[in-house]
């Protein structure tokens, strides 16, 4: 920041979005190079320079090219947005929540359990109750990591990784055992019947989309207009200073983890109630890890997380068509995701590019994150 007059609004916006936008463009270019190099394996004859265009064309028409595609983009973006907001809140408090995966799964299972138990009850009762349980279960699961961090300093990165795998085991045990639908050939829970989220748009555009959208301003308000939000940000900026100013970093850490887990649990709840409507024992998802990318790309700001989630929602929505039409495997999305992250963290080098000098760093740094377990607050 210079002492000169404040820059114009568009200029300030550019300074903020420059690094993410450049990272996305570079990642898409790198993805095109990957498609081109391995086009030899797709066509099994020669390199095909048009394949990247074909693949991206299919990716775009599958996600944005039709009404159904647009709805699918929103549906795919919904859990990413909710879980991404959760990870972002964690970052603001200096916490690296790698456990969105486990929180998502157990939140989803909690919602399905309530939904299946109240399958024939009024949706006005069952849906709010199921979603509330999803939030609570996610919050409790993340709360374990928060509690351990606050009391014994156990590093939340390690504990949340461990909790992810414990969640997988708990899920598979409950679905194969106590919650199993009797007489089903595969271990799966009963369906949720009436507790399915109402469809508001298109084929499967469920009301969860609106819930996720509403969470954006709510989280922004919480972070930037309330005392709790101020404390979260203060603890993230400097836990010692926050303690000296009379705040209690330990309870803030616990609260933030619970909040992050609640959002990830809600993401699981709306996904299961809105889409698959029952929980198989082998349910897999990558939402928890995608949420990390979404939060980082959105600079841990709720208004930034929204476009980031939409971008990844669009890629997930279009990847299927890309695989069918161009023969390019949907796994390309992971490659692009990794490269976006790569460019975001080497922003130090990126900002040496002409025109990007004024750009702000691509990441909210989380110094507290890499502090060794023994020293953490």
């Amino acid at each position, binding site marked *: 920041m210079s002492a000169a007059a404040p820059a114009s609004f568009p200029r300030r916006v550019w300074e903020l979005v420059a690094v993410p936008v450049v990272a996305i463009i570079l990642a898409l270019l790198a993805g095109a190079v990957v498609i081109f190099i391995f086009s030899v394996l797709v066509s099994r004859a020669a390199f095909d320079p048009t394949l990247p265009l074909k693949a991206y064309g299919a990716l775009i028409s599958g996600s944005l090219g039709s009404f159904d595609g647009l709805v699918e983009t929103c549906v795919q973006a919904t859990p990413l947005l909710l879980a991404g907001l959760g990870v972002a809140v964690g970052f603001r408090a200096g916490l690296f929540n790698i456990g969105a995966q486990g929180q998502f799964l157990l939140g989803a299972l909690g919602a399905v359990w309530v939904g299946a138990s109240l399958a024939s009850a009024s949706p006005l009762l069952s849906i709010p109750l199921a979603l509330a349980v999803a939030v609570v279960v996610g919050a409790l699961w993340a709360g374990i990591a928060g509690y351990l961090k606050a009391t014994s300093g156990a590093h939340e990165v390690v504990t949340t990784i461990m909790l992810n795998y414990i969640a997988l085991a708990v899920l598979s045990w409950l679905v*194969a055992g106590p919650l199993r639908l009797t007489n089903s050939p595969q271990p799966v829970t009963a369906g949720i019947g009436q507790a399915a989220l109402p469809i508001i748009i298109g084929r499967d555009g469920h009301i969860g989309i609106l819930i996720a959208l509403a969470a954006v301003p709510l989280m922004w308000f919480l972070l930037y207009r309330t005392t709790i939000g101020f404390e979260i940000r203060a603890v993230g900026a400097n836990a010692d200073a926050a303690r000296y100013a009379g705040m209690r970093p330990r309870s803030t850490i616990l609260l933030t983890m619970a909040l992050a887990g609640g959002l990830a649990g809600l993401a699981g709840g709306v996904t299961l109630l809105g889409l698959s409507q029952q929980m198989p024992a082998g349910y897999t998802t990558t939402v928890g890890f995608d949420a990390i990318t979404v939060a980082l790309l959105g600079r841990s700001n709720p208004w930034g997380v929204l476009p980031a989630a939409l971008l990844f929602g669009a890629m997930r929505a279009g990847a299927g068509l890309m695989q069918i039409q161009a023969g390019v495997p949907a*796994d390309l999305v992971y490659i692009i995701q990794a490269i976006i992250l790569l460019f975001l963290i080497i922003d130090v080098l990126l900002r040496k590019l002409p025109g990007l000098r004024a750009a702000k760093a691509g990441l909210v740094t989380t110094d507290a994150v890499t502090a060794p377990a023994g020293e953490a607050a």
Partner: protein
Amino acid sequence: MDPLISGLYGIPVLGLVFQLLGYVLDLLPILGQTTIAVAVPITLAALCGVLCERTGVVNIGIEGIMLTGAFVGWIVGAAAAELMGPVTPLPIFGITMPLLIGLVAALLAGMLLALLHAWLAISVRVDQIISGVILNILALGVTGYLNTLIASQSPPGAGSFTALSLPSTVTNLPLVGWLLRALFNQGPIAISTIVIVIILQVLLFRSRWGLRTRAVGEHPKAAETVGINVIHLRYRNVIASGALAALGGAYLSMEQTNSFQAGMSAGRGFIGLAAMIVGRWTPIGAFGAAILFASGTALGQAISIGPPNGQLGDLLGKLPSQFFDALPYVVTIIVLAGVVGRSIPPAADGKPYEREATT
């Protein structure tokens, strides 16, 4: 049954322990061998973590390096096999040229990925957790992408390394027979893993390199003052650690099985991380923790195949199989929480090192 044994089994509560002991002793030859086989990839992942973190670099990308090692070893071996035509394997371990080429390629690929992490963590000084996440996502994407493309052509592959088979006079020896069988009725990667554990333990605590590595991980500034090049040592150790994790991956696709499946590392890199913590950042400790975790898995398998009789069988029968899956992670959290002894990482773990100005 021996009256003494049935007497011991009859004691309330404590009898269950004796029953478990008897069950394990009966199955020891099989349990021991399975335990080592399951522990090998976990151990190699944990050694990768030990080497990185002792030197002051956190690496949660071990899972990705393993997956890459598994894929590259398998695919390069398959390509070499296709080029070289039929080959006769050596009489020991079933070693063939394509397999060796695949193995070397796997190690190089692992070191390359580790180099990326080293560059990001040491030179660019980015958040090392994010760098590890990138490694994992990148490996998942690239191996999945290529596997989808190649699987439609399904190359026959280069086969796999085979296990040693000790003569039955040795494995039937009293007292040590089962141990010899567990340790040596294994393939080449498994046997070398045990050797690597011992070598690394000695080197880390009894050699100049080991002292320097630990110094750099605990107090890099002090190390630099006495003339150790912190940056170089960190680079070398992190790159070498990539070969260890990749060896663990190659074990999965070239020794335990003879093919690659998408995502086949299946969380072993993270269990390795857990073994490293429970083993308190030492190679022997990590190996011990991996054995502990693996024996849970092996016992779980044994119980699901042939559960013990009587009281113990009733009790274990009620235990869900997922209990054994979750065990390593629960143990790790308990250790981290400081309930059973404290596990403390090297002091400079995860902190990028910045040289002070030299003038």
